[in-house]
């Protein structure tokens, strides 16, 4: 596929994910739109271009793994799984309801395509380490992609896991930091700054890329480059905008964990049409 066609395709996929995110959180009446929207371009690129996976066979041993360590952003993952064909799209509108497979945070035992249950921050990167080790131990060439949050980076376990991945030279592991600069209590730099985050990861022994996390072709090219790094894990610091794509949610801390009301859903869907 030509680059401009690919970009067009992935932009369209990201738009669909964003619409589904807004709609499903609106239907649920609760959830985390801000960090789901900020991650949409990276997740779209992974699921609709970069990753090797098979929605008809979710447990295919050779598949690439995606771990959403910032589990509260699961609407973006649920949307990507539904759009890929892991389950029927109308299930999205059952999000957070009693009996739904779509729990408030991802449950690997309920949803086909979820690699590990997450939601308690800091734990997904460690789990990704384990999956990357298994690939090595079983001579498989799959890759493990894990997305962590910037607020999540304040958890100690992230840095324990970071040390482990570098120590064991897990070059089949690629982490993406969704660096949207906001957390529940305010901006990252006011609450508990993680700067200089690129230097930190580099000092921990990772190969670090820094990109615009909404520039599709930069995401495409960087994921490819990260796959080729040998001898160390890769970190892609993706600078993003919380609430990206919905004007009244962009850079608004309040939409970290608040659902849009009916009117706001309509406005948002119009903007994303």
């Amino acid at each position, binding site marked *: 596929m030509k680059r401009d066609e690919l970009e067009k395709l992935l932009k369209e996929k990201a738009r669909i994910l964003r619409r589904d995110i807004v709609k499903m959180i609106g239907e649920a009446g609760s959830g985390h739109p801000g960090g789901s929207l900020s991650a949409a371009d990276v997740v779209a690129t992974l699921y609709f271009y970069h990753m090797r996976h098979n929605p008809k066979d979710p447990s295919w041993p050779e598949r690439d793994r995606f771990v959403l360590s910032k589990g509260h952003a699961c609407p973006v993952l649920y949307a990507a799984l539904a759009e890929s064909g892991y389950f029927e799209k109308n299930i999205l509108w059952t999000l957070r309801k009693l009996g739904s497979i779509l729990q408030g945070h991802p449950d690997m035992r309920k949803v086909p395509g979820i690699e*590990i*249950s997450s939601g308690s921050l800091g734990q997904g990167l460690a789990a990704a*380490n*384990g999956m990357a*080790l298994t690939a090595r131990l079983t001579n498989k060439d799959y890759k493990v992609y894990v997305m962590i949050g910037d607020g999540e980076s304040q958890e100690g*376990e992230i840095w*324990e896991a970071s040390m*482990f991945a570098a120590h064991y030279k897990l070059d089949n592991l690629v982490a993406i930091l969704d660096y949207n600069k906001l957390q529940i209590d305010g901006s990252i730099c006011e609450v508990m700054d993680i700067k200089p985050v690129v230097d930190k990861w580099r000092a921990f022994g990772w190969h670090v890329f820094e990109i615009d996390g909404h520039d599709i072709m930069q995401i495409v090219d960087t994921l490819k480059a990260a796959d080729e790094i040998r001898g160390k894990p890769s970190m892609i610091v993706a600078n993003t905008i919380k609430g990206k794509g919905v004007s009244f949610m962009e850079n608004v801390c309040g939409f970290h964990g608040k659902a849009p009301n009916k009117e706001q859903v309509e406005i948002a869907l119009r903007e994303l049409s």
Partner: protein
Amino acid sequence: MVEKKATREGYGDALLELGREYSNVVVLDADLAKSTQSYRFKEAFPDRFFDCGVAEQNMMGTAAGLAASGMICYTGSFAIFATGRAFEQIRNTIAYSNLNVKICPTHAGITVGEDGASHQTVEDLALMRVIPNLKVIIPADYYEAKAAAKAAAEIDGPVFIRMGRPKIPTIFDENYEFEFGKVLKLREGKDVTICAVGIMVGVSLEAADELAKEGIGAEVLNIHTLKPLDEKTILESVKKTGSVVTAEEHSIIGGLGGAISELLGKKMPLPIEMVGVKDRFGTSGSIPELLDYFGLSKQDIVVAVKSVLARKP
């Protein structure tokens, strides 16, 4: 002469056999491989052993990831760090998803000895017992530890096995067959049921000998599987004897005493006395001194039995 071996040695020996029998067994430790005995697996299977350094949270998460991708993962550490520091990783990433991680810490209880309270966990059974999906095993000697660690590989899902530091007299032998989830009756008696776990199983058997001299028949049950609890066997025994004494190297809150009290309260309200650590922290000392100091001696069980007999309806 009495054979004395530590339960953790049973873990080390089991890992060697597991490594030979299962190509997908992986072992992690957190800078305590020499203490937990997992270093022996490391020497035999260096490619399948990963030291996580002093970082128990990542160790549990990594174990979950290994299990989620098809491995059977055994993790070592001291019981205080495995269950305390990494409680939430065990709860949220391992147990919630029912992953095949075997949490096998050593140095549980006060018999850590001289290291003192910071390293003596008397809360771990309470912490592990409340987590859904997690099975809880407390071996009573070397042979039971070895058999339980091996049996855990065939149990689908997470298993917690609590082991200790000191060499203790063995009760079983190489032919011992561990039956997961089944209470093991070690001695028949008609007057009182002693439910015991870990090092207190051996101590309870000694106490039963003492009691027999006074004409008191104590039935001794080894509750090696604390969860799921074999309620049927326990209730059958208690129905016969009419009273219970629990004995554990753990807080009397939330562990074996707690579990048996819950059972009796629901199904057969009869008098119970608990031998265990009485809601306090540990302290430095030699192991024999500590067992006396915290009321975990043979004599403490004898006193508890007499006290519960006096309360019998």
